[in-house]
């Protein structure tokens, strides 16, 4: 089981627990504002953009080439950016904090 914190644009904190599925699914199923996941989680819409805390970047691993390219659709993309449909929940992610991108 991993405990994952989402911080919304309004600074609301959602502390959620899961052991499977993607980060996007976890956020959508708990109504985290700003994570839409319009394409259902296939890296096609870029509506699940989060910024990962710097110290957790290694934990979540690197974005694939397609994900990196899709992130370029968003002017607010930074080195901390990920599309969270591409991050699978696992025990290793316990303690992860991500911030919903503007």
């Amino acid at each position: 089981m991993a405990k994952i914190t989402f911080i919304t644009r309004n600074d609301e904190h959602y502390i959620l627990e899961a052991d499977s599925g993607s980060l996007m699914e976890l956020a959508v199923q708990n109504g985290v504002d700003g994570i839409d996941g319009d394409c259902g989680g296939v890296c096609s819409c870029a509506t699940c953009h989060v910024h990962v805390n710097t110290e957790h970047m290694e934990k979540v691993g690197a974005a694939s080439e397609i994900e990196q390219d899709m992130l370029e659709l968003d002017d607010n993309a930074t080195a901390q950016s990920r599309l969270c449909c591409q991050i699978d929940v696992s025990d290793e992610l316990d303690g992860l904090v991500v911030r919903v991108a503007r």
Partner: protein
Amino acid sequence: MNEVERCIIVGASHAGVQLAFALRTAGWNGDIVLYDRDPLLPYQRPPLSKTALSGEGTMKLMPLKPEQAYTKAEIDLRLGCSVCAVNTAEQSVTDDGGRKTYYSHLVLATGARAIVPPIQGSERAKNLFTLRDGQDVNRIRQTFNPLQSSRVVIIGAGYIGLETAASLKKMGAEVTVLEREPRVLARVTSPEMSAFFTELHRNHGVHIACSKNVTAINEREGVQQVCCADGSAYTADMIIVGVGVHVRQELAKQCGLRVHNGVVTDSQCRSSVPNIFAIGDCSLHPNAQYQRFVRLESVQNAVDQAKVVAETLAGRCARYEAIPWFWSDQYDIKLQIVGLADGYDRVFFRDESEGNTPSFSYWYFRGMQLLAVDAVNNAKAYVVGTKLLKSNAEVNLSRLQDLNTSLSLDALIAS
């Protein structure tokens, strides 16, 4: 007449659900009532022909929003409930339970229904399905899994037909796809892309047969055959019909709205009656980029139109000016499309494949105007194409064709 501020939304799929929540985000304080005939908690549609169909275990639909979110946003969700009548004079709808509800604003997000063409014998055919909603997928799965032999004939090689072919192949079926036109995806893409997808499916062992006009479904001694006008016949333990949709526009007609293969709207998604709107697959709306009316069947269109109506009802000025985009996942191929290629007079091909993995893009132009980009396993081309279409900048064609020029907005803008 009633005084209540209430938005009634008919249809709780991507467009309707998005609108209900976007209204709250936009500050709408009135009531929101959201109807759908489908009894299931509203769910993602694109996975239906893909992971929802081929996934192991019990069928998993991905809810668009969790159930408690509707309560929290004070959205009155009426599922398994059809709106059968609208009275525009008194501004009310009546549902199939006889319940009357008044509205100040009515939004039709009624979508479309799968066409079952009048094929002789189709009404008696065994294991014949369309694929449009969760119940269709459930029926297909429940029928398919216990089949002794699994010869599936798919009628129609559009995106639904081809995605379903890929999924069923993954599930172990012997799949034949019959297409009436001379090529697959004939109505929606270029001959080049059709050729690519035909080869892709053949390489995965799917039998694709074009110029096949299905005329009858016959059964002899327990064996079912799909028969074509040219005399050919294909044995089918299961038949999937994916030949397109008809817009659900009965309510719109009843309201006296202008209807023409879709509910005709302006750029605010407003119908010919000022307090009635239409969004999603059922709307025929003006597209500023292409200077014509279009009807689009896509998540992007549903979501973006919903946002426009939410802003409009909240009293702000919003126009629907989004550039259409689409995607399709088949096997390990990701197709991403931005723009509408209809009317192109030339196409440029960029092949950036490495090894056995295809990665390429087709760029469609009319004169110097970029119309659309099809990108296969090449999100970069999709993203740069999107930016070029948004900027309306002239594209430097020689750089586009030069594979030593890596794709970027700056590199491709003419100078």
